[in-house]
């Protein structure tokens, strides 16, 4: 599904060059729930940004579902993200002026669905995350855990081939965090491929595999099931 070969990412600030990823090689299989772990500054989020086409590596190769994503134009990358990928961000990343259902509908409308179809899909997605009673609430009227669940609903409503989750529990209390992990687990059980960045081991127990990063390199892999 995802093939990452010899990825190097270097940030330049004036004369100072900082190599954040130092030749990463990684494969993610269809239906896998992969956790990327590491201390702060290890490069785990940077790796996820490269894999999810939000950033471009300095060198290396990335293919997703057979597509060489680094050869895509900006427009093609946007369409690829819209049609093939789903994102869950650390701080929920909901548009504050849109209600829960509208936040989910927006990418669906962008894909060309009619308003009624987009609404129907979005309602189902909200039901899946247990928020069918919060359809018309604005993000400011939802708790952190609820906002993150809306964010997951937005990602999965598009039926993505891979769901990228960047520290989805970082801003939540433990009860809400477990709830989010349960939602992700349930999605994975239904066949959803998930790549999750986290620094909390307890939330990786249900993953298939954990990749440990340190100083821009994979130092260890752990297969759980």
């Amino acid at each position, binding site marked *: 599904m995802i093939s990452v070969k010899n990825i190097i990412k270097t940030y330049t600030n004036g004369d100072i060059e900082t190599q954040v990823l130092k030749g990463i090689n990684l494969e993610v299989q269809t239906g896998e729930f992969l956790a990327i772990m590491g201390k702060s500054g290890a490069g785990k989020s940077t790796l996820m940004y490269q894999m999810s086409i*939000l950033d471009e590596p300095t060198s290396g190769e990335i293919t997703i579902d057979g597509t060489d994503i680094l050869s895509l134009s900006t427009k093609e990358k*946007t369409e690829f*993200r819209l049609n093939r990928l789903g*994102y869950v961000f650390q701080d929920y990343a909901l*548009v504050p*002026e849109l209600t829960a259902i509208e936040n989910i509908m927006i990418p669906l*409308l962008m894909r060309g669905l009619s308003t009624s179809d987009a609404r129907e899909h979005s309602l189902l997605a909200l039901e899946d995350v247990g928020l069918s009673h919060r359809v018309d609430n604005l993000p400011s009227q939802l708790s952190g855990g609820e906002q993150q669940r809306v964010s997951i609903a937005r990602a999965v409503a598009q039926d993505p081939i891979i769901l990228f989750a960047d520290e989805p529990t970082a801003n939540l209390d433990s009860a809400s965090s477990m709830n989010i992990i349960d939602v992700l687990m349930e999605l994975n059980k239904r066949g959803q491929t998930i790549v999750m960045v986290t620094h909390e081991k307890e939330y990786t127990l249900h993953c298939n595999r954990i990749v440990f990063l340190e100083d821009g390199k994979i130092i260890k892999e752990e297969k759980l099931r």
Partner: protein
Amino acid sequence: MWTSLRVGYLLGIRQIQRASIWTTLLIIFIMMLTFLNLVGVSGVLVGLIEGSVAANRNQYMGNVFISTPSGDPYIKDTNSIIQTLGNIKEVKDFSPRYIERATVEANYKTRRDQNELRDSVGSSVAGINVIKEDSVTGLSRYLVEGEYLNSNDTGYVLIGAKLLQKYAADFGEGFSTLEEIYPGVKVRISSGEKTKEYIVKGIVDSKVNETSLRVFMVEGEFVRFFDRYNLNVNEIAVVAKDGISEDVLKNIIVKSSDSRGFAKIQTAEEAIPQFLSDMKIAFNILGNIIGGIGIVVASITIFIIIFINAITRRKYIGILKAIGIKAGSIQFAYVLQSIFYASLGSATGVAILYGLLVPIVAKNPINFPFSDGILVAPIDDVMIKVTVLMIVTIIAGFIPAWMIIRKNTLDSILGR
């Protein structure tokens, strides 16, 4: 394209709907002021001159002004032209005027010392058909003292207020004026060897110099005093019937009359004094410059509003891009907001302009030395300015959105 617009519309509408009502009202208020600055200032500037042109037309020239060609003493074969005017159905009325230069002297009976300067002024004397003149220019409405002339008032004159010291004190020392003139006082009018006493029947005042710097007498008396027995007049003010344009009437008169170059036939617009024509051009340029500055201010206002809006929402713009929303949709959302602010600002401005400002200024004209200034805001001109404002606003809304959207998606999300 349609999908992008649909998504952009939803994003834009929701941003407008869920923005602070006070912020929205403030932006609309600023846009309204910008619009009024754009239309109102140039409208007042042009209105000062238009007021003067209108006053010249209404109080002096009529719609078409027939005058003496340069170098001629009067309009030769006046009778033929007057007969022609009487037969043109588009002519509502006309007033022929005889004009001669003369000296008007006052207080000559109380002047004891022959070395003392005479209390006199040089002036144009107009011989008028009092009924026709009143019908064409409403001369009687400009009486500030005394009464209007009757057709048989051979020994009476009306005198322009600016020839009198008490009305023209502001004109300064360089202008001669008559002192102690009021209805019933006698003045002496001299032309060449002829001199005759007349009683001042009334004083007329207007911002049109041809009214307030002239002496008026009945035409029969003029003919006798100035020996104008050929009955050739110097000017004819012609008024068109309602709905007939000045150009049309002028062409009809030119075609109908065989003036053989005996008369200069012009529309009121063509015949306005050169200084007014020059000022009109200058004020138009000034109005356009001020309007242009207004447009720049409007565009900068919108640019700042949209830029601040977009920069504070940079993270969300990044997120929208990350989840696959096209740049065009996000840009359209901001352009839509610009259109919303500009439309409501302009609409409020138009309502205030036509519902409040134009009627108020029309009722209370701006007192200008040579005119009663009005607020000129022709609908076609206003619509052009609204369109220009909208176009500028769209561009001013698009540029900051484009600037923010083209930034790296990840940098936007992470606030780098």
